[in-house]
């Protein structure tokens, strides 16, 4: 080592480093180009939006979007010194898989007090539905220690509904709308209105056509899914979003995860690799 005591490096090593840097730079360029291309295809006017391309280049991995610490006061309004309890009334005939997935994600980011109740309008509920929010939290005897309450009530309701702040909000009806609300507690919607609308539109497609639609409609959605997934790793481009959660859950609810199209197959695998869908899958068995 005495040969290079002035801080000099072996020229060969330096050349190697330079070459590596060059390769990395080229790779980044390539990646950015591909991403830009994907963006133009999925959203025709993406090139007009500078913020999107800059956010894309910031290289967030799909899971990182949830990592940002959220200020519940900013999201849900002033803290009144008590538990913010989200009440969800769901019919045991149609367990809301999406919401269970979102609950799981919420638990990873907030201290959530989860409770399951059975309303007197329902006489019996299968045991797996009673334990669908996982084991009881060790601190559940002290409600004030939690940031967020997630109260799932199995009730004889025609439509799933959510009640949060009964003074200021009307009850929110429909699993899709509740899912949108819960997801916003985890991550902001894409700032690009086009992408945000795309997410919303996929959520609608999932609930109206995949979950409730005829076989014909489902086949059409599967084709649309396949082509969308041909353009990017997730339904709305490079980021895992509510669109993916909703479509995945509605697909599995119909037992059609053994879909044919290759892109859909790959996407299903990626979804499952994320590990967010554990609680929902337990219910399907």
């Amino acid at each position, binding site marked *: 080592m005495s040969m290079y005591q002035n801080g000099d490096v072996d020229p060969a090593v330096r050349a190697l480093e330079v070459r590596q840097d060059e390769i990395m730079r080229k790779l980044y360029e390539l990646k950015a180009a591909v991403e830009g291309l994907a963006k133009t295809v999925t959203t025709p006017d993406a090139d007009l939006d500078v913020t999107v391309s800059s956010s894309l280049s910031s290289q967030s991995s799909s899971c990182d979007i949830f990592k940002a610490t959220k200020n519940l006061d900013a999201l849900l309004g002033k803290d009144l010194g008590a538990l913010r309890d989200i009440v969800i009334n769901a019919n045991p005939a149609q367990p809301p898989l999406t919401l269970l997935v979102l609950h799981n994600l919420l638990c990873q980011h907030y201290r959530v007090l989860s409770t399951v*109740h059975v309303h007197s309008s329902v006489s019996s509920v299968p045991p797996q539905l009673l334990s669908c929010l996982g084991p009881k939290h060790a601190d559940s005897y002290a409600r004030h220690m939690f940031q967020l309450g997630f109260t799932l009530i199995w009730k004889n309701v025609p439509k799933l509904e959510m009640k949060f702040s009964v003074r200021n909000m009307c009850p929110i009806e429909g699993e899709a709308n509740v899912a949108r609300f819960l997801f916003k507690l985890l991550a902001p919607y894409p700032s690009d209105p086009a992408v945000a609308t795309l997410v919303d539109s996929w959520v609608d497609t999932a609930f109206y056509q995949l979950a409730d639609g005829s076989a014909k409609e489902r086949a059409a959605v599967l084709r649309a899914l396949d082509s969308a997934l041909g353009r990017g790793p997730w339904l709305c481009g490079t980021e895992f979003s509510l669109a993916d959660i909703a479509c995945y859950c509605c697909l599995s609810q119909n037992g059609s995860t053994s879909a044919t199209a290759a892109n859909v197959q790959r996407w299903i695998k990626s979804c499952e690799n994320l590990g967010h869908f554990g609680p929902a899958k337990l219910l399907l068995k």
Partner: protein
Amino acid sequence: MTKEEANGATEEEQQAQSKKALKKQQKEAEKAAKKAEKQAKLAAEQQSADEDDFAKDRYGVSAMVQSQQKPDRALVRVEDLTPQKVDQLIWLRARVHTSRAKGKQCFLVLRQQQFNVQALVAVGDRASKQMVKFAANITKESIVDVEAMVRKVEQKIESCSQQDVELHIERIFVISQAEPRLPLQLEDAVRPDGDGEEEGRATVNQDTRLDNRVIDLRLPKTTTSQAIFRLQSGVCQLFRDTLTKKGFVEIQTPKIISAASEGGANVFTVSYFKSSAYLAQSPQLYKQMCICADFDKVFCVGPVFRAEDSNTHRHLTEFVGLDIEMAFNYHYHEVIDSITDTMVQIFKGLRDNFQTEIQTVSKQFPSEPFKFLEPTLRLEYTEALAMLREAGVEMGDEDDLSTPNEKLLGRLVKEKYDTDFYVLDKYPLAVRPFYTMPDPNNPKYSNSYDMFMRGEEILSGAQRVHDPQLLTERALHHQIDLEKIKSYIDSFRYGAPPHGGGGIGLERVCMLYLGLHNVRQTSMFPRDPKRLTP
């Protein structure tokens, strides 16, 4: 002169009078004769009629049942009169609810508790004219024995509980005759709430009902009271069954006690030989002593006395208390879970087994069905405060809930969670009795809880202090004379397990479960500051 004149005048007058009197007498005699004649004629007719009456031994007033005979006769219950019994000849004992004669027929409605059936006596080969007349004249509420043929009806009888059949009476005997005038009109008493005002008809007010409780309890047609007290019996039975299954032991505690258990203000004093004693406000002390005596889990059903001079819709001076006390392992929520589960089992039992009674009551007193969650919703006091503040109520952190705030909170909870039953946990220590265990994390709060039904408190409970030293401290803090509660504190000196419990008022539970408005409706013979009879 004047005297004579006067005399003469009077004589004349007398004469005239006597003439008049004579005429009068004659007329009266004639009248009497005519009357006698008429009566004789009537009697003769009657006699001839009686002689003609082929059905003479098929009706009448029977001799008083003094247990002279033991006939082998099965009496069918009205509720069992279903189409399966068609064309059978049956015997039946029931009250005459109404009777309506119509030429050669007489329709009766026979009632047995909350069930009733239409019956018919018609002139024919079984019944005579006289028998129909007799049936029509039986006073309302009399008890009769009837032999009748069950017949199917073409059209449903809407006014009766047994709609598919009617009875063709072959024999009818009065077992107990009711006086013709009833102290209250049954039709008025059963009219649903609010209807009377609209139609300008009379309603029977609460006090009149209570003054004639025996008749009121029968309340025909809808027989609301019958249903209420059957349901109340159900509450008691479900309470016992559930707790017994959980391993609780039923105990009986004295009601005459030497010292007031919770503050001396509202106790009844009774003279006890040469000294005085009190009527127990709750079996609190004895329940806790049983825990110290290793009974582990106890409950007690019995009368409880409160000498509060409050005339409200929900206060009685004597009511039936359902009391629970249990030792727990580590956390008093074990007690809450046990009590709420018991309540839920009661609600479920009522929902599943007392639907007829619930519907009977709701016909007269309409209310929404009772809703609850399983497991029961538990909120903390601070959460309740936040909910109330959001609704614009200004309240201090350590203030007790006022009755209006209690009701408002009930409405808010119902709106969000759609439950009529919930637990409010962690009350401020300042508003609870001295034996309440303070919260270890925040000395401002306590390990105590209230349970609410339809926004009204039905149970107040807590973890009790089982440590004699802390108990003494708390008693001193509340400025209680230690001498008076010495025996109570002493019972914890020789090893006492941590324990908690609570007491429920049976009448209140029934009232609130059924959505009634006055606790006197669910007390059979209510006692309040103004009522000691019947």
